[in-house]
């Protein structure tokens, strides 16, 4: 009898013990020595489907913070990063943001790549009035058209990429356009943009197919699209499916002009897992011009810091994101006030960014809370397995 009571007690003690242990394992964010640090929360996906992106972003951001702190921080105050993993899951993302806000009194949060998580983060930021800067999600749902935003992006939005693509297709003289995309937002958002706007470019959308993520074969879809006889194919899908698509097109002996708006990050992923001869001639929108020395410098810095290479636009756009955040804090005037920092974002004018063509300057405007407009976009092409910049008529 007595032993049963002990059993229950011990079971509860163990549970309690776990909770208590966490107290000490996590330790406390002890009050820092003078001067008082600026707390910035960093919620990113280190695990989960888009983990390969998150694992690149964090080192870059951390590097930028370290450099800033070494140079004296902002107004003499260093930045302290509070890092949490959101696993690419939107609900967890909101959870991490809540923790960041309540536990660490952090005034600005940086968060990763995944569009669904981005939408969750934006909704939270709008309700809780904490500014967030992000560097990767493409969804157009993140655009704030009216009033001041709380969620900012240092990359482009799907519609921006689509606009650039349509301009390029027109430039090349094609008229009939086919579309292949994911059944998820990346594909459907792009498709709706095309359906609404393609006629403005004098082009015609002759056919479209959507495919599930992780499809093992797309031959039938490829055939259906080919039968509508497009001259140019716009592709908006994840890396694994692109690889399948490229192979299936080759099997069908169909080699149209293919372009994608997914940006250089995904494009390099596509190139990594597809035999490069299948991608010959494919073009993609990108936000960097890698003939710029700044790009090479950031790529090399990343390689030195982590021992791996990521020669695509993830490091540069994360770099921009970090520095835009620092500038917003500076211009905001009060690093402890989230609203001031948010207003600081809108005060940024002509800020030198590493994305875009040489000499590009970045800013945000009411109605545009993303950094990259069609003016800052570039295009890359795969030739003989390597990326090359496309020279566009201006």
């Amino acid at each position, binding site marked *: 009898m007595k032993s049963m009571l002990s059993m229950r007690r011990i079971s509860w003690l163990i549970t309690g013990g776990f909770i208590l242990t966490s107290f000490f394992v996590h330790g406390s964010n002890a009050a820092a020595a003078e001067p008082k640090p600026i707390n910035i929360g960093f919620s990113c996906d280190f695990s989960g489907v888009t983990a390969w992106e998150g*694992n690149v972003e964090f080192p870059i951001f951390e590097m930028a913070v370290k450099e800033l702190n070494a140079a004296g921080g902002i107004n003499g105050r260093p930045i302290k990063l509070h890092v949490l993993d959101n696993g690419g899951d939107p609900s967890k993302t909101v959870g991490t943001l809540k923790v960041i806000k309540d536990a660490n009194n952090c005034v600005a949060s940086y968060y990763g790549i995944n569009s669904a998580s981005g939408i969750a983060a934006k909704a939270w930021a709008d309700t809780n009035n904490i500014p967030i800067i992000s560097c990767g999600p493409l969804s157009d749902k993140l655009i704030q058209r009216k009033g001041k935003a709380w969620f900012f992006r240092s990359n482009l939005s799907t519609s921006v990429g689509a606009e650039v693509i349509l301009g390029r297709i027109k430039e090349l003289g094609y008229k009939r356009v086919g579309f292949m995309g994911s059944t998820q937002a990346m594909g459907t958002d792009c498709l709706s943009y095309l359906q609404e706007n393609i006629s403005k470019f004098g082009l015609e959308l002759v056919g479209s197919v959507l495919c599930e993520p992780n499809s*093992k074969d797309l031959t*039938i879809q490829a*055939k259906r699209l080919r039968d509508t006889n497009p001259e140019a194919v716009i592709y908006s899908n994840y890396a694994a499916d692109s690889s399948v698509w490229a192979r299936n097109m080759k099997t069908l002996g169909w080699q149209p002009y293919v372009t994608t708006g997914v940006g250089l990050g995904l494009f390099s992923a596509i190139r990594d*897992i597809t*035999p490069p001869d299948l991608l010959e001639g494919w073009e993609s929108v990108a936000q960097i011009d890698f003939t710029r020395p700044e790009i090479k410098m950031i790529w090399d810095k990343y390689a030195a810091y982590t021992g791996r290479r990521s020669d695509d636009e993830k490091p540069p756009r994360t770099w921009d994101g970090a520095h835009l955040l620092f500038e917003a804090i500076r211009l905001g005037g009060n690093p402890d006030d989230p609203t001031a920092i948010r207003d600081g974002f809108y005060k940024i004018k002509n800020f030198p960014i590493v994305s875009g063509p040489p000499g590009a300057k970045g800013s945000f405007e009411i109605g545009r809370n993303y950094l990259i407009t069609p003016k800052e976009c570039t295009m890359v092409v795969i030739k003989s397995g390597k990326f090359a910049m496309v020279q566009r008529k201006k």
Partner: protein
Amino acid sequence: MFKFLADFLPIIIVGLSLGSLFGLVGLAFTVIINASQLVNFAQGDFAMFGVAVCWFALTVLNVPLWLAFPLGVIGAALFGLLTEKAIITPLQRRGARPFTMILGTMAIGIIAAGAVGAYTKFWWMKINPFLGSEPWKLKKLPIDHQGVMIIFATVVLVIGYWVFLNKTRLGLALRATGFNRDVSILLGIQTAKMVGLSFLISGVISGIAGILCAPLSAFNAVQGLPLAINGFIAVILGGWGNPYAALLGGITLGLVRALLTGYLSSAYAEMATFFVLIIVLTLRPQGLFSRFMIPESKKN
């Protein structure tokens, strides 16, 4: 006529090669089921592990394909054996419920996925198509050679398995163990070794299937369990305990999915698979092809 063939042939090859993947995984499942009435939820991870070893040999060790392929298969086989040693035998000795052993295989599968994922950072493990990117041309008809290889390998594997099972003493011992474990022990068959052998064979089959299909669309660490589920569906659709029925079930599944995905919106193809499964489970739980190639003695 040529146009019809040109349209139809890719669909057939796609359906058959996809279906062969599911069918082979289903076959591998059934090997284990036949020897020990156990369901192996790590089946897909056997295939994934084989792909991982092959990929590692190809990209990190720079070993040529003709060596990396067998290495991958051996890796998968050893992983199968490891599963058996680490979880099945100890649990069996303890007299655990069958479901606990099923969970045990799931645990091993998760460990494999987690380990491979941690190493690859959950990135894709790319394996190039064996014969290059150019499709074969049969009188101007392009044929995806990877798909053909998969179909060919399936045929060889099934025939090989049949021969092994029915024409060799070891195969006989394996069948006996599955048929009646206690009597087999009385007859002097080392049933524990037989179970281990079934896991080994299952690993070989999964490994071959996985590596052959990896060039089609890259594998990553967490695709093991979904593949196992598809293989499981193939077994249920085809017929429980009948390896050839499992194969047919897999091919049916592959063809149906390919057709639905191609002609209907692919949004509904995956959902349809699960609804079809529930319907089959309700109306014909013994499977669609359960009588296929069953010799009289097995009907029990």
